[in-house]
């Protein structure tokens, strides 16, 4: 089992100190390194509308590279606008995964639309920044990864990587909608696609990670980190329904692979779980692992899927 030492909650959007569009939630942290700071991309939300529905907006928090507990800057405006009427990302951009590509920075993100029979649909969009990741412009008004024969809806949770010559996109794909007495909930699983240019993708069209909680298990945040010759995936998983109940909510899982296609799941090695009390005592989710100045860290979300911010853990030892 890995040994993660929790360093506590780093950023809490609640409390009124931030602009209205980031008054709650700081979801799906993703790190981009700069010389003197690290930029943590997150998704925040303004208060819900009259029907109780949320939009999700892209933001960042900069942390002192020498002291990750110190916030040095918070984005003052969303890093990406919402999509035009009728487009796939009209109602939210969440989550976001960023990567450098020469002088530009690319952001792959889940774009949210609203449907009649089910509450939402999600497809994966692509936006590019030319100003060191402060603002992003979408490459097109449509998605860069959309639905297909065996991935009919809810393509989300992108994690962009470049191992070797290819681009890899790990993401989740919806499998079924559970009717749930008129409040449908999707079942989704982890998949991947590869590309020569990050724009034209070939889907592998298979589930990467076996289920542990039965046929309705939902898997998210497939965060892949290469270390000691192997690919290590930290992800989160939960029950399909009634997941706001702490015992059925998100936990962090782990799988390892030699080639990124065959994965061995072994959650017992993940080494990080809910705390006995406090902000991450009911739920722990959306892991993101990164290396910084010789140390390995994990950002993650706590209770209510990041409603009250994200936290940091530090690996004691190495990922083997």
């Amino acid at each position, binding site marked *: 089992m890995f040994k993660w030492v929790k360093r506590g909650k780093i950023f809490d959007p609640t409390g009124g100190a931030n602009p209205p569009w980031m008054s709650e939630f700081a979801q799906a942290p993703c790190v981009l390194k700069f010389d003197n700071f690290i930029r943590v991309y997150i998704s925040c939300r303004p208060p819900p509308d009259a029907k109780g529905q949320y939009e999700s907006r892209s933001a960042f928090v900069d942390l002192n590279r020498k002291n990750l507990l110190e916030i040095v800057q918070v984005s003052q405006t969303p890093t990406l606008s919402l999509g035009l009427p*009728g487009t796939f990302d009209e*109602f939210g951009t969440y989550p976001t995964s960023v990567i450098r590509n020469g002088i530009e920075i690319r952001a792959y993100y889940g774009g949210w*639309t609203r449907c009649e029979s089910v509450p939402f649909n999600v497809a994966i969009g692509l936006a590019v920044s030319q100003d060191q990741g402060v603002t992003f412009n979408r490459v097109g008004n*449509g*998605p860069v990864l959309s639905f*297909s024969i065996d991935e*009919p*809806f809810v393509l989300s949770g992108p994690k962009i990587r470049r191992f070797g010559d290819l681009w890899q996109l790990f993401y989740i794909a919806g499998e079924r909608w559970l009717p749930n007495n008129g409040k449908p909930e999707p079942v989704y699983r982890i998949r991947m696609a590869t590309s020569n240019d990050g724009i034209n993708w070939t889907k592998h069209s298979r589930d990467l990670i076996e289920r542990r909680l039965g046929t309705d298990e939902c898997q998210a945040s497939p965060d892949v980190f290469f270390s000691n010759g192997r690919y290590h995936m930290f992800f989160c998983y939960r029950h399909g329904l009634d997941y706001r109940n702490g015992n059925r909510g998100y936990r962090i899982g782990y799988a390892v692979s030699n080639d990124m296609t065959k994965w061995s799941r072994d959650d017992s090695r993940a080494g990080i779980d809910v705390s006995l009390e406090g902000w991450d005592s009911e739920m722990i989710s959306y892991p993101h692992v990164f290396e910084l100045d010789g140390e390995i860290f994990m950002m993650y979300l706590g209770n209510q899927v990041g409603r009250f911010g994200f936290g940091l853990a530090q690996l004691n030892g190495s990922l083997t």
Partner: protein
Amino acid sequence: MNWRKIGRIFEPARHSFKGGVMEFAQSPQAIVLNDCVRIYFSTRTRDTQGTYLSHIAFADFDRKMENLLRVHTDPIITLGSLGTFDEHGIFPINVVKYEGKVYAFTCGWSRRVSVPVETSIGLAVSRDDGLTFEKIGSGPILTSSLQEPFLVGDPFVTIDADGWHMWYIYGTKWMKITERETSPARVYKIGFATSNEGIEWSKRAGQLIPDRLNADECQALPTVIKIRNRHHMYFCYREATDFRNNKNRGYRIGYSYSDDLQNWVRDDGNSGIQCSTEGWDSDMMCYPNVFRCDDNIHLLYNGNEFGRYGFGLASLQAQQ
């Protein structure tokens, strides 16, 4: 081109569908079988909220197109399950014979919140001469992409020695609601894709047929036939708004031709077919389908109110 109108050959009100009077017979599309010409079309039911759902039925005619042999209203293809792209209707359906099977390229509809609908193209295959179709998956084969962000639909497929060709439409804009419209108006254009086997398609990117009215012209339902060495395309086009009741802004039949499938010359003046001065196709003509049967070339089309009153037939006269 010189078409002789035969007249309306199918009136839905004379038939029943799912226990009521049949409403609408839209987008007639033919395949020629040994003993008949089978014409598929979309008809409608209303759901529990009174909103329309489009379903596929067919009518068989003799090969001289003189007699209606039978109308088939039993289920041919099911609508999609919860949350899928074709949950709320299939309209239109394009049928192609291939290696003893019939391939149906479908335009599936699902309802949205900020705009009325989204569409994508699916594939189903029949092994019983088109009596019943089985979908190859619950998701689409062609859908939104970076530069074609929504409303991918209206497929028309041909197969020749060069492979599979698909003409289709894609949305470019959802317009803000104006005083004359009750919901956002859409703009869509004709595109083109190719495939080696009919399942994996490559979009050829961009608008194929130039606008005639203005940049907001809506172009729909392309149908293509090769006569000698020239490809002839019929389609329909209209203004983006105020097109339902204003006959000067409603659907008309457009025409283009190409000798290489790349460059298309728009030449509506030589379409050879116009609205009638009175009767069932005097206000509108739309949803053309051109097909060859024995030594004849026929054109199926809808008239007033988008096919509420059925479809008609015209036959190509010998060239001078």
